[in-house]
């Protein structure tokens, strides 16, 4: 049952009474070539159950062997998050039953994570927030279930379920924050900015593509409210598998309002897991468990402890790339952008898109203008991430080249974008196919100007008399005749020349 927003207090009212506390758990699928504990490939999109072996199928007798590359990625993530790296740690078995988990336990880490006690500084609402990291630990992914039949797409009520074990055993890193307090009304924005920053960091490290829409990065958002001024945390809810930046923000916003409604009514918040619904931005309770989940963790006896040598850790520290915040500061300076601009660019996930567009020859201001203007508008309309639009940085760079060369004006360029997004090809191909190029033939323009003068003689007279105001009317008429394909500046030049001569 989904809670509707109708009877909820407004976000502002909720925040007037309560102080939100968040805890964010982010799972990242590592982009290793092979799985966490066997040699099977991790490539996405293969036919179901074609990338499996006795180990990742959990066949009787099969044993795990740790993927060193995954450990390396985990350590690099830990270092980038300013964590301490364990000198000695173990895997643990998390015991629970689910048909897509081959062994009915997940090989994870429990009280001995590979990385712990770190932080990540992020920018949101015009200031810097330090998000403290509790731990980053390694584990394996489960298989993927598809529940067929039934209304909800969940296992209960389904007629049957299909399980694909290709995903089973793909290495995951789970990054858990300490409770995030003091964000007040900015909580949803901070949550989003944290996940966005983490995604940038993961991408910069090259350990994962961190594409949320493919489930390569998934966020569980814990939210609780406490009356303003109270020390003790309220009861939290955990909204699982929130799979886009926008959804993170919406889920936190919704949960704040929902909790506020519960508390306002004098009820107590139930500690539970909840599902987020993309369509209306609400959450609903997960399956109610009759007993508290007891995972019966114990050290994984099939694996030996992981004891990364300090020399190796130091070596890995040396491989860390320029961190996104440092890079952003550098880019901000290079682009001459304000703090606010930069934050918008970051929030929109446009940093890399702009960098790539610039690297393909577009001036930075032009690249920014298109990505953050017209393209951001399209993304917003489609409720999609900027990076998911059907246009590449190379195509944007081509568009910029066409505008600076005068082949396109802004109005035409916007039409070209529509064409590219509709899959009509590159900007050049769209220009050719739709016949959108600026009319640069002066003869054609002069004919149109003469036509306009003939149509609006009074306006022409005024211009002749030195009053340039009515020129706009004449230029407008020319643009209309040329269906917007004229360069307005050139039309003005020619018009004034005509009327002064």
């Amino acid at each position: 049952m989904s809670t509707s927003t109708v009877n909820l207090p407004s976000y502002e009212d909720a925040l007037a009474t309560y102080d939100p506390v968040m805890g964010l758990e982010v799972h990242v699928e590592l982009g290793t070539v092979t799985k966490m504990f066997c040699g099977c490939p991790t490539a996405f999109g293969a036919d179901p159950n074609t990338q499996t072996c006795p180990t990742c199928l959990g066949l009787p007798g099969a044993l795990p062997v740790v993927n060193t590359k995954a450990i390396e990625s985990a350590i690099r993530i830990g270092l980038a998050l300013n964590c301490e790296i364990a000198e000695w740690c173990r895997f643990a078995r998390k015991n629970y039953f689910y048909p897509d988990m081959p062994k009915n336990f997940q090989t994870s880490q429990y009280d001995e994570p590979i990385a712990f006690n770190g932080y990540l500084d992020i920018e949101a609402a015009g200031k810097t927030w330090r998000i403290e990291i509790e731990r980053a630990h390694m584990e394996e992914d489960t298989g993927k279930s598809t529940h067929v039949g039934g209304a909800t797409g969940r296992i209960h009520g389904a007629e049957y379920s299909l399980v694909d074990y290709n995903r089973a055993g793909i290495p995951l890193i789970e990054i858990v924050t300490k409770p995030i307090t003091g964000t007040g009304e900015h909580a949803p924005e901070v949550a989003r900015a944290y996940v966005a920053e983490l995604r940038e960091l993961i991408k910069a490290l090259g350990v994962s593509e961190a594409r949320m829409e493919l489930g390569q990065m998934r966020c569980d958002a814990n939210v609780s409210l406490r009356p303003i001024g109270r020390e003790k945390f309220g009861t939290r809810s955990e909204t699982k598998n929130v799979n886009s930046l926008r959804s993170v923000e919406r889920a936190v916003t919704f949960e704040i309002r929902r909790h506020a409604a519960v508390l306002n009514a004098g009820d107590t918040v139930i500690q539970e897991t909840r599902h987020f619904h993309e369509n209306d931005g609400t959450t609903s309770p997960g399956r109610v468990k009759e007993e508290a989940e007891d995972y019966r963790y114990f050290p994984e006896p099939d694996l030996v402890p992981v004891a990364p040598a300090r020399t190796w850790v130091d070596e890995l520290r040396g491989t860390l790339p320029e961190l996104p915040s440092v890079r952003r500061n550098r880019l901000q300076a290079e682009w001459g952008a304000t703090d606010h601009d930069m934050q918008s660019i970051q929030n929109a996930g446009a940093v890399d898109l702009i960098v790539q567009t610039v690297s393909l020859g577009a001036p930075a201001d032009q690249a920014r203008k298109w990505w953050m203007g017209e393209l951001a508008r399209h993304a917003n309309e489609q409720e999609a991430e900027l990076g998911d639009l059907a246009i590449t940085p190379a195509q944007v760079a081509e568009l910029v080249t066409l505008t600076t060369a005068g082949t396109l004006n802004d109005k035409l360029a916007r039409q070209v974008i529509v064409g590219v997004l509709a899959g009509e090809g590159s900007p050049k191909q769209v220009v050719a196919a739709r016949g959108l190029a600026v009319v640069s033939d002066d003869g054609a323009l002069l004919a149109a100007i003469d036509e306009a003068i003939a149509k609006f003689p009074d306006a022409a007279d005024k211009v002749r008399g030195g009053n340039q105001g009515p020129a706009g009317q004449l230029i407008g008429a020319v643009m209309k005749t040329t269906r917007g394909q004229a360069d307005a500046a050139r039309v003005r030049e020619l018009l004034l020349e005509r009327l002064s001569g």
Partner: protein
Amino acid sequence: MSFDGDLTRSTAAALAAAIKGGDVTATEVTQAHLDRIAKVDEKVHAFLHVDTEGALAKAAEVDAKRARGEKLGPLAGVPLALKDVFTTKGVPTTCGSKMLQGWVPPYDATVTRRLREADVVILGKTNMDEFAMGSSTENSAYGVTHNPWDLTRIPGGSGGGSSASLAAFEAPLAIGTDTGGSIRQPASVTGTVGVKPTYGGVSRYGLVAFSSSLDQGGPCARTVLDAALLHAAIAGHDPMDSTSIDLPVPDVVAAARLADIKGMRIGVVKQFDGDGYQDGVRQRFHESVDLLRELGATIVEVDCPSFDYALPAYYLIAPSECSSNLARFDAMRYGRRVGDDGVNGVEEVTSLSREAGFGPEVKRRIMLGTYALSSGYYDAYYGSAQQVRTLIMRDFDRAFADVDVLVSPTTPTTAFKIGERADDPMAMYLADLCTIPSNMAGNAGMSVPVGLAPDDGLPVGLQIIAPAMADDRLYRVGSAVEAALNGKWGRPLIEEVPAL
């Protein structure tokens, strides 16, 4: 055929030499054992599955190799009985459980693979207590195995099928697994030799897990040298098993040939004597200690106080790990499925399949382990058991600082009657009293026959324990004892097995 004697009563070493020398073909050797199985296994029930076709195919391959003049390995063409807990590609593997009835693994265990690579002829899969949980094979879902010394008695367990196949002359070699004594105790009660190698010495890949931190595969044979040859064939680092030790395998074959213990210091564990030990077992044990002294060893009494807690700690650790290891048997991907009528949901089908698929002892241990690991009890049970484990290791460390090996009876009594302890789990668990500490510490142990108990005329085993990766010492001591006793008796003890 110019082989002098009964093929099925020969040692593996002698068979290998005869095949290599052309005195007999591997096919003849294999057929002789298949015939023996056909003749006596109805009474013994050592085998759950006889792979006649596969065995003869392998034998033919060995004969062809020899005909081509290719070099044969030290065990080429020698038949072997494999405990049904190791996966065998294309050959059923049940672990003695209804849960895996009909399962044909798509892959070979590392032990299976190494046996095949060594050109050993795998005759079939042997009976065992379900998922290796038991000391008598009475927990097998496919019926009990009978001890060839007395068919009314148990052959030990869990690897009773392997030990019985040796004592019944159905195979000269067998493979067992030892989690708390499942190789050594069956060897003891059948008058055969069984070795639990150092934990990590033999790969566990493809060994269906009972308790991962305790399970260890190892060789079973009728002579110490045969066990050593088999040990050498299966041991060594395996990258597929993270707990496998990446060190050279101790030269167990050389140690078995040495058979000399002059100058060795041997510890007698104080805790493994006295009340609860059958008189006849104690008598043979004390004679064995005297024999070791006569053979030139110095005997020292060793105090290992933590061993008193080994059994209870074991019955927390092993069930805990088993409760997790056996969770995968949910009837979804392989094995027996019950109640899949299109109406029952996944949880009902899993539940019905387990109800039908698991026997009472397996259920008991899953429940014990689930409880011991649960939140609020973990520290008191699993946590303390691990602490006991550390104390046991320290006792061993202290002991091995002073002595080369330790000795004790392998098991407190000789083979008990079928049914005698079946309803008394505690009495059954006591059979592993002396063998469990080695599993807890991960070191190496052997049981070697030292005669028949005067009170019931049944075989008694001497347990020898060596530090981790000093498995060669077991063979050195075991072969010395074997040689001395064979000299004294005029023929090996195994010749005393009544005709079947």
